[in-house]
């Protein structure tokens, strides 16, 4: 996995989540998404399992690893960022 300073993960994860949302017609500006907003369900960003599958693949492509492959079913952008920060430290 790519070793990055912890501050470097957030914008890239935000960009990837925005990209997944754009693919399903939800336009969100990267950086404007609340880190702790739920990724799933009507009260959150609204991703379903197929979107999360794509998200995990994009994360793996970007960082060389992804939290879902480690059994961590991340529920928010914050959890994804913390996964990478933890791995980097």
């Amino acid at each position, binding site marked *: 996995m790519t070793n990055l300073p912890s501050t470097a993960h957030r914008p890239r994860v935000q960009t990837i989540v925005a990209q997944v949302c754009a693919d399903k017609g939800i336009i969100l500006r990267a950086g404007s998404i609340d880190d702790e907003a739920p990724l799933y369900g009507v009260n959150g960003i609204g991703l379903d399992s197929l979107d999360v*599958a794509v998200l995990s693949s994009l994360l793996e492509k970007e960082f060389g690893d992804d939290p879902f492959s480690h059994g961590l079913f991340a529920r928010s952008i914050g959890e994804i960022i913390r996964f990478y920060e933890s791995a980097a430290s």
Partner: protein
Amino acid sequence: MIERVLQAAAFRDAQQPFIIDRNRVWSYAASWTAVRRMAHGLMVSGANRLVAYMDDSAELIHLLIAASLAGKTILVANRLCTAEELAEVASNLSADMVISPATIEPMTTRQCSIDAILTVAEGTGQHSPSDFAGQGEVFILTSGTTGRSKCAAYAWDRLMSQVHRRADQRYSRWLLLYQLNHFAGFQMVAHVISNTACLVIPQSLDVARVANAIESHAVTHASGTPTFWRMFAGMRRERLRCLRQITLGGEAATSDLLEKLRSLFPDASISQVYATTELGSCFSTSDGLPGFPASLLDDAARPIQLKVIDGELYVRSVNGMSGYVSKGGTDSLVQKRADDWVATGDLVTQVGDRFFFRGRVSETVNVGGVKVNPLEVEACILAVDGVLAAHVFGRPNPVTGSIVVAEIVCDHDRSSESIIAAVREACLRSLTRYQRPRFVEAVPSLKTVNRKVRRHASTITLSHSISAEHDT
């Protein structure tokens, strides 16, 4: 069997060209002479089970027929396999001679060149025709497009019995677009010799060389895989009018490819053949449509019968291999029963009075419990202008089990970015969310086996160093 057909043609049509390769034109009479010399050398050698490791050439075809005349069993090895793989094949088949132009190391099996066999033949007295045992057998490796190759045993009479002799194909000129180490290559030789036709062996499958071979040797018939024809149609702009017939086999053809071929070869009839190494030639269609008519399932009088169970095509055939050869040779031949229904592994769907191929059972991609057939996705992608070839497969995913990804070969004269964007648009319009490829990558060429797309999952970051004309 094949030797008797050659002998008859050599007496009847002595000067008729039989094979044209890079070296010379071989008439039927000259080939018969060469075959007899080689058969004599094989008899003297004492070897009974042979492995040939050489380029597709008139010499190799002569060797195959000579082995049959001399009552030997022969397998043609893939020329791209390594020395270690070749040694393993020879060992597994209990071969007692490997025939190759060069010495191969490491190899415990005895080695010999064609020249050495002919030298032996010249140094001893000739066998009379009655000395030859005849009835030699061939071992043919399956394509292995979805896994490891298996070895099928065939008697030449089974191969020859599948060929139709037609008056309009007598003296026709066929272009060899399959390799001689695979079933389709053997079928091509059987077809040509049965019709006293001529086989043109191109120097390579590079589109320019193939087109040059077609024109310079006035080729009238050509049979190849849809993968080959798609590349050819995508890179060739000028029409070729000398071809009278094009045959596609080995993979499912899509309607857009059939339309492209009709445009490129306006004077040619187009047929599709369904055949497998194990079952032999099963049926052909020439109506210009993908798939096959449902009426083929209703004809119980046909020697080859079809049925569909749970969407999979089953075939019962009187043709086909004698059985699989497992490690140890003849003693471990797994006999095939003629009355057996064989699951082909090909998925089909009936729409009206026609069945369409939907892919292989083993290639179905499971996306979160939804089964996706790659061929349906490929058909959508291949209809996009500028896409020369496509391979859709599943990539492992921790959330849904798999997601669908695609590799495409783009027209070199156009921007791959714009073609990928058009592919995404087309998939968005025509496919369900689960079917849509989540990653589409442009690659220089697809990995192929015997001119067919290699059908198993690979990762999106594979290196693609093998070009379409170099099979693995």
